[in-house]
């Protein structure tokens, strides 16, 4: 469910076809830089009603999904 939402946010914000995004897809492949990631994290915080802190570079879609899942699990 988190993965789907992440894909939706990436697709909506960056005009990327959500069907081309997989867990292993790297941010670099999507041509998204660290500022794009920060922007999406802020959007995802609203969607999931959580506060996300980025302590290390988020290099893949899967890492972003795992980060959010771990925060949701500890909520």
């Amino acid at each position, binding site marked *: 469910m988190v993965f789907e939402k992440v894909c939706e946010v990436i697709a909506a914000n960056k005009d990327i076809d959500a069907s081309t995004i997989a867990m292993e897809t790297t941010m670099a492949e999507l041509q998204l*830089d660290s*500022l794009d990631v*920060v922007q999406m994290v*802020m959007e995802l915080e609203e969607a999931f009603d959580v506060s996300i802190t*980025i*302590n*290390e570079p988020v290099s893949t879609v899967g890492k972003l999904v795992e980060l959010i899942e771990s925060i949701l699990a500890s909520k």
Partner: protein
Amino acid sequence: MAQTSLSTLLGIRYPILQGGMAWIADATLAAAVSNAGGLGIISAMNADAAWLRKEIAKARTLTDKTFGVNVMLMSPFAEEVAQLLIEEKVPVVTTGAGNPTRFMAGWIEAGIKVIPVVPSTALAKMVARSGATAVIAEGGESGGHVGDLSTMALVPQVVDAVSIPVIAAGGIGDGRGMAAALMLGASGVQLGTRFLVAEECPAHDNYKDRVLRAKDIDTMVTGRRLGHPVRSIKNPFSRDFASLEADNAVSNDELEKFGGGALRKAAVDGDIERGCVMAGQISGMLTKVQTCQEIIEEMMAECRAVLANAEKISL
């Protein structure tokens, strides 16, 4: 309720910060800026904690005013530098080249005021939420590491995004630029290139002379391919770098290697042909070396004159 002014918040006389320029912004420059009423900033650049400890101690012998340290988040020594700032109780920390949230709780707990450089509204919101005292919205007109947005576009958007003071940086070379930044909603300004040519600045005379000779169109941005673009004066080094960058046969590693040590070569050794002469787009406005005191007082006088004349503009 009237907002506390940036100067009061930081314990400085004028809302003018000096940018953290690697190989340039050392204890001598930072102390001179702070003594002149601004906020001087030592650049921690890629140096280790031992080097920074000495610079902080030196600055304390040169000024009893508030000064800060700029942490380059991509530095391999970022962790130990972050810890040293807590030990040394440095009053103000600015950050650049990344997201500083992983260090912010520790700094804030130690009473340090944290002012990150932000190139986007999302990062501004994130650091504001993490307890930043203010943010520096730096447009791509600046020298050194640059973002995409221009100061004119970025500053008002960041001002709208956060409720903490915003300091404008990038493209501000005199009191007119400072007044314009205040009109965009900024509470203060940060100057890099203008202080680079200060008398007290330790940059090599060849470097300062090259910046003073530069015209409006003499800077360029290289390194976009590497993800950390840099603005510098067009010279043989930057042109060669641009050619290699455009050549797909050249790997990113080779490109990084070609650029390695180039700033030091220019700023310390004075090699302005083969070194990277980082400078902002306002270089063309600068014509002479002045003391930090002269720079700050001139900026403030110009800014006040421009603002006083504003009501005479007929619309």
